[in-house]
C-alpha cells in the first residue's frame, strides 16, 4: 500500500498552513455544509460558469464540481514554487526563440533534431522570426504535483493557451462571498490582479509598428467553444474586446476589427485558437475561424499574436523530457522543479523497460491531453494493458511512460464528510516584458476515492488555492 502525503496532517498534528482550517472544518455541521455547497453551486450556475477545461470535450453546459475545502500553501512553499515556475517559463521561451532561430541546442546535441524539427507543432512559417521581447509563450501553465513536504514534480507544460484561469478567479470570488471570516482569519495573498497583469503583459509585447497605447483583443473560436465562458470572462475583466475571426480583417499592413464606427486597428491578439486555424492563407486553407493574411501582418511587425504561433513545440510531451536540459543550457542553472522521470518509448531501451513494467507505469500519448489516451498501469485491467502493449509496439514514438506518482491529498468534502483526495496544481505564469505569477492557481481534485486522475472529464473537481502571506 502506497502512502500518500497529506497536505493537512502530519501524523496526528495539523501542518502549519492548515492550522486555522481545522476549527473552521469542525465548526461546520453536515447541514450547514450542504447548504453552503448548494449556495456555491447556485452562484456558479447563475454566473454561467459551465465550461470544460480546454481539450477535454464534454457537455458545454456542465458544471465542474467545486469543493469548498481550500488547498493551502505557506509563503515559503510558494516562494520556491514561484522561482521554479519562472525559471521554467524563461527556459521554455529561450528554447522557442532558439529553435526558430539558429537551433543552438540542437547543434550542441542536447536535444535530438528530429524531436524538434519533425514535431507537428514545429511551425516552419515562423522560422527566423523573433516575437516582441523574445517571447513565444506569454501564458505558461505548468501542471505540478506534490509527493512530499518538499517534493514537487512538473507533470507537463502548457505553452499555447492553457485554460482554467477563470476557475482560479471565480473559486476565490465565491469563497470570499461565502466565508468572509476565513479571509479575515487567514492572511491570504490575493489573485484578483491576474486580469490586469495579463492585460499589461499582452500590452508589453506590442508589435514593432505599434506607436501608441496598444489595443488588445481576445480571439475566440466562437460561442460554441467549450471555453467560451472563460474567454468572455477574461475579456470583461481585462476590459478588452472579445472577437471572433470574422470580426477581424487585414488591410494593408495592419489588422483591424469591425466596429459600428468603422475599422479600428488591433495591435495584440490573445488568441484562444490553435495555430492551424488562425490564418487560412498560411495554415489550413479551409479554416473559417481565423483571419486571412494575419501571418503576413504578424511577421512584418504589424500585430502580435499571443501565444506566438509555433509555441506548441515546447510543450510536447516528448520535448518535456528535455526541459531540465534547456534550463541548464540557456540559463546555466540547475532546475528548481523536478521533471517526472520519463521513459520515451521511441528509444529502444526505454521501450523495453516500459513494456515489461506496464503494470506499474502511467503511459501517455505524446500528443494526447485531458486524461484520454492514457494508461494508469496499477489501476488498469489486463485487457487495457494488452491493448496499450499493442499500441506502443505499433507506434512507439507516440508514447511516453512515467512512474505512478503518489499524488498528495488534501481534505475534501465528500458525501460521508471529509476525506483525503488527490490533487494537482496549475499556476499561470505570465511572460512579457516581465515574468509574473499571481500567488495561486487552479487546484484540481480527483473526487473519486483513490483516483489519481484529476481531469474534469474524468470526474475531477476544483478548489480554491491559497498562498498565505508570510
Amino acid at each position, binding site marked *: 500500500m502506497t502512502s500518500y502525503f497529506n497536505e493537512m496532517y502530519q501524523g496526528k498534528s495539523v501542518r502549519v498552513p492548515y492550522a486555522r482550517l481545522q476549527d473552521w472544518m469542525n465548526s461546520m455541521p453536515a447541514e450547514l455544509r450542504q447548504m453552503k455547497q448548494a449556495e456555491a453551486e447556485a452562484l456558479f450556475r*447563475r454566473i*454561467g460558469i459551465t465550461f470544460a477545461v480546454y481539450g477535454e470535450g464534454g457537455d458545454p453546459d456542465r458544471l465542474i464540481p467545486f469543493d469548498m475545502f481550500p488547498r493551502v500553501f505557506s509563503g515559503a512553499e510558494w516562494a520556491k514554487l514561484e522561482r521554479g515556475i519562472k525559471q521554467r517559463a524563461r527556459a521554455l521561451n529561450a528554447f522557442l526563440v532558439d529553435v526558430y532561430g539558429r537551433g543552438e541546442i540542437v547543434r550542441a546535441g542536447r536535444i535530438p533534431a528530429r524531436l524538434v524539427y519533425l514535431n507537428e507543432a514545429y511551425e516552419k512559417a515562423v522560422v527566423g522570426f523573433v516575437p516582441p521581447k523574445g517571447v513565444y509563450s506569454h501564458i505558461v501553465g505548468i501542471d505540478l504535483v506534490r509527493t512530499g513536504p518538499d517534493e514537487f514534480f512538473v507533470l507537463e507544460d502548457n505553452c499555447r493557451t492553457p485554460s482554467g484561469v477563470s476557475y482560479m478567479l471565480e473559486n476565490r470570488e465565491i469563497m470570499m462571498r461565502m466565508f468572509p471570516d476565513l479571509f479575515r482569519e487567514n492572511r491570504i495573498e490575493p489573485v484578483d490582479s491576474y486580469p490586469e497583469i495579463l492585460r499589461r503583459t499582452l500590452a508589453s509585447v506590442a508589435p514593432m509598428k505599434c506607436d501608441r497605447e496598444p489595443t488588445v483583443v481576445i480571439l475566440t473560436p466562437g460561442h460554441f467553444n467549450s471555453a467560451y465562458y472563460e474567454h468572455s470572462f477574461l*475579456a470583461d475583466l481585462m476590459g478588452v474586446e472579445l472577437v471572433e475571426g470574422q470580426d477581424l480583417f487585414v488591410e494593408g499592413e495592419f489588422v483591424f476589427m*469591425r*466596429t459600428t*464606427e468603422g475599422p479600428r486597428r488591433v495591435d495584440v491578439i490573445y488568441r484562444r485558437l490553435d495555430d492551424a486555424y488562425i490564418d487560412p492563407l498560411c495554415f489550413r486553407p479551409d479554416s473559417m475561424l481565423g483571419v486571412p493574411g494575419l501571418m503576413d501582418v504578424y511577421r512584418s511587425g504589424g500585430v502580435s499574436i499571443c501565444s506566438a504561433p509555433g509555441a506548441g513545440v515546447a510543450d510536447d510531451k516528448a520535448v518535456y523530457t528535455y526541459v531540465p536540459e534547456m534550463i541548464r543550457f540557456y540559463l546555466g542553472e540547475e532546475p528548481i522543479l523536478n521533471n517526472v522521470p520519463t521513459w520515451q518509448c521511441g528509444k529502444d531501451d526505454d521501450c523495453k523497460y516500459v513494456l515489461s513494467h506496464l503494470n506499474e507505469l502511467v503511459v501517455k500519448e505524446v500528443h494526447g491531453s485531458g486524461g484520454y489516451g492514457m494508461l494508469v498501469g496499477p489501476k488498469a485491467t489486463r485487457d487495457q494493458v494488452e491493448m496499450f502493449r499493442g499500441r506502443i509496439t505499433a507506434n512507439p514514438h507516440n508514447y511516453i511512460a512515467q512512474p505512478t506518482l503518489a499524488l498528495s491529498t488534501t481534505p475534501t468534502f465528500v458525501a460521508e464528510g471529509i476525506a483525503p483526495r488527490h490533487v494537482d496544481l496549475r499556476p499561470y505564469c505570465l511572460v512579457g516584458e516581465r515574468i509574473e505569477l499571481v500567488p495561486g492557481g487552479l487546484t484540481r481534485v480527483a473526487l473519486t476515492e483513490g483516483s489519481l486522475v484529476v481531469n474534469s472529464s474524468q470526474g475531477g473537481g476544483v478548489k480554491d488555492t491559497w498562498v498565505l502571506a508570510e
Partner: protein
Amino acid sequence: MLSRTADNLYWLARYLERAETSARLLEVGARIALMPSAAGYRNEWESLLHASGTANGFAKKYGDAVQRNLESWFFFDTDNASSVMSCITAARENGRIVRTALTTQVWDALNTAFQELRQLERRPRSELDLSTLTDWTMRNTALVRGSIDATLLRNDGWDFLNLGYYLERADNTARLMDVKYYVLLPRLEFVGSGLDNYQWTTLLRAMSSHRAFHWAYGGEVTAAKIAHFLILNPQCPRSLITCVEGMTSHLDRLSRGYQRKTFAQDRARSLQAELAELRVEDIFEEGLHEFLSRFIGDMARAGSVIRDCYLNGDVR
C-alpha cells in the same frame, strides 16, 4: 463597439419582441375561434398561419389546423422559426454571446426565461392552457425589457437593443393590423358589422391595448379610430409612429455619440415626417392594406440601412 456585438444586441431584442408577437397571434386566433362560425368564413387559424408566413411548414408537419397543434406550433415547435421557443432560444443565445455587454439582471431574466421554458416544455400539454402560455410569454419578455430599462448602461449597445425592439414592434403592429383587415374579414360587406368590431376588439386585446383605446377614444369601436390609434397616435406604445419615433431618437443618439451621421438617420427621419403629416383619411384613401404593405416594406428597408450603416462590419 464590435459590429457583431451590436448585431447580437439588436437581434436579442428583435427575437424577444417576436416571441411576444407569436404569443399575441395565438391569443387572437383563440379568441376569434370562440366566435360562432358563420357560413363562408375562412378558417381563422388558417388565416393566422398565412399571416405568420408559416402555413406551409405547419401543413407539412401537422396537416389540419387544430387548435392544439397550433398551440404547439406557435409556442414550442422549433421547426417554426418564429415560435416562442425558437425566439426565446435565439434571444438567449444572442445574449450569451454578448454576455459581458449585459448586466447580471438582464442575463438572469433572459436565462431564467429560457430555463423555465425548457421546463414548461417537459410538462404534459394537458396541464398547460393557452392563457398560461401567453401570460408566461408576456411576463417574461416584460421582465427582460424591464431589466434592460432599469439596469443597462445607456451606451450604444442600449441604442442597438432599442432599435431592434422598435423595428420589430413596428413590423409586428403593421402585420397584426393587416391580418385583421385583409385576412380575417371574409368579405367587404362585413365592414362595420358585429364581426368586424369583435375582431378589432380582439386585436386590441391581443396588443394589451383595448383599455387604453377606450380611455383615449371612447364610444364605438370603428376602423378609423383603431387605425388612428395603432398608426398615428404617439400615446399608444405599439403604434407605428411611436416605434418610428423611437428608432429616430436612438439613431440620433448614435450619431451624436459617434459624431457621425449615416444614411440611417435620414431614412428614419423621413419616415417619421411622413407619418407625422398623415391623416387617417389619407390612409383609408390609399387603402389600409396598401398603406400597411408599403409601411412594412419601408421598415424592411430601414432595417437593411441600419445593417449597412452599423451592423454588417463593412462600416468605413
